[in-house]
């Protein structure tokens, strides 16, 4: 589903964020990427939805080589990948419902379809009753659920989440992780970037650890390796 082949990334003038990263994630997997701050985790995530391009190497999504993706193709890629961030990235002047609907608006979906799909995904994330609320009227965990709903609304095959629990307390974080696990159970590939030891250890899933821009370990049913 996601293949990195010897990917390097250099931010000018001379930060080598990634130095030859290779891995392969199969459809339906749940993979955590961990590593110390600055080890290149976010860079890996950004490359998957083409916010950054590799300096060298190859990235395949399915069998689509996105290493040199054209500008016009980026929206097509992004409608197939759901992204979730630490800071939620919700629009404060839109309700939860509108925030989710926005992703469909942008893709030119019909109002009818929007009215069908949005309540459905809000229900999946457990916010069926709170669609009319504005982000400021929601707790952090609820806001993150809205952003997950927005990521799901295109029915993506892949969800990429960069520190989705970074702003949440431990209990809320665990709830969000349960949500991701459930989404993964439906068959969606989940790529989770995190440096939260408890979360990684609680998942019992594959863990890829980065160190200085390289894969330092890649283990099935892995553990958080750093101290």
């Amino acid at each position, binding site marked *: 589903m996601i293949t990195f082949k010897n990917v390097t990334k250099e931010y000018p003038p001379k930060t080598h964020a990634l130095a030859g990263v290779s891995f392969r994630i199969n459809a339906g997997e749940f993979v955590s990427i961990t590593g110390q701050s600055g080890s290149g985790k976010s860079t890996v995530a950004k490359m998957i939805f083409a916010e950054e391009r590799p300096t060298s190497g190859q990235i395949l999504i399915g069998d689509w080589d996105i290493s040199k993706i054209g500008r016009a193709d980026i929206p097509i890629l992004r409608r197939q990948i759901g992204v979730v961030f630490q800071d939620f990235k919700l629009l404060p002047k839109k309700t939860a419902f509108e925030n989710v609907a926005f992703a469909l608006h942008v*893709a030119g979906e*019909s109002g009818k379809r929007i009215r069908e799909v949005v309540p459905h995904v809000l229900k999946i994330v457990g916010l069926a009753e709170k669609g009319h609320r504005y982000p400021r009227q929601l707790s952090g965990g609820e806001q993150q659920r809205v952003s997950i709903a927005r990521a799901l609304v295109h029915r993506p095959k892949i969800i990429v989440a960069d520190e989705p629990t970074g702003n949440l307390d431990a209990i809320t974080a665990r709830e969000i992780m349960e949500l991701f696990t459930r989404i993964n159970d439906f068959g969606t590939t989940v790529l989770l970037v995190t440096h939260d030891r408890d979360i990684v250890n609680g998942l019992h899933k594959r863990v890829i650890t980065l160190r200085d821009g390289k894969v330092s370990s890649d283990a099935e049913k892995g553990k958080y390796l750093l101290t």
Partner: protein
Amino acid sequence: MRTFFRIIRFAMQSMLRNFWLSFVTVSVFVLTLITVNAVIILNVLANASVKSVEGRVQVTVYFTSDASVDTVKSTQSYLLGLSQVKDVSYVTAEDALIAFKETHKSDPVILGALDEVDGNPLGQALKIRAYNAADFPFILEALETPEYAPFIKDKNYNNYESALKVLGNFSEKIRIGFLVLALFFGFIAMLIVFNTIRVAIYVHREEIGVMKLVGANDWFIRGPFLLESIFYAFIATGIMAGIIATTLRFANPYIVAFFQGVDVDLVAYYSTNALPMFGAQFGILAFLGLATTAFAMRRYLRV
């Protein structure tokens, strides 16, 4: 199509959210248009005045008293044969005298002098009008032939020529002045549009970021800003048309009265030319706005 309506809505929203910026932008557009229309109106008025003054210019050719009626009549038909000549009217010696007395009726010295002389000191005359005042030198030159010259006592311009020149110069200068002003305002307008779009991009940066993340294409992101500048042009042109319509409605009687006898109907002029004229003004504004917006987006909107 659906996407198109969403783009329109987004553009409207952006304009309303930055109401004062939109207001300033439209105002400067309107200022630009006001100067442009001032040039247009000035042109219309100046052309009408020049035409009307030109139409009044006439040259009177006085014949000696020994010239026969036939000589004068043949001069008249000779002049009428010239393509530059509009018409030539014949004035008998008696009529010339009556007219002379009429113009000088408040001048007892001249009238007294006239009484001293026996008989009619004035001869016959021809009054010549030309299609174009500039052709008079040629027409008068044409009379310098041995056939007619000996009978011609005097040729007299009523002195509109210098007035025409003054009028021409004056309207030319004002026109250039307003054109410079229009260019100046146009330039300011572009700067302001640039800034407005820059601020609009800034205000929407969050939204734009999210739009990109969820897979909006370029056109969906850029469209609203381009549309916004077209809206500004449209609104400004509409306001300008309103200003012109109301001002002319109230001012037209005064303008007509002021230019007595000159055929200046600005209302008619604007109503017959409204579509192409305001169309062109809208077109130019929209073009300027789009170009500036495209430029602002290149700088501030990385898609």
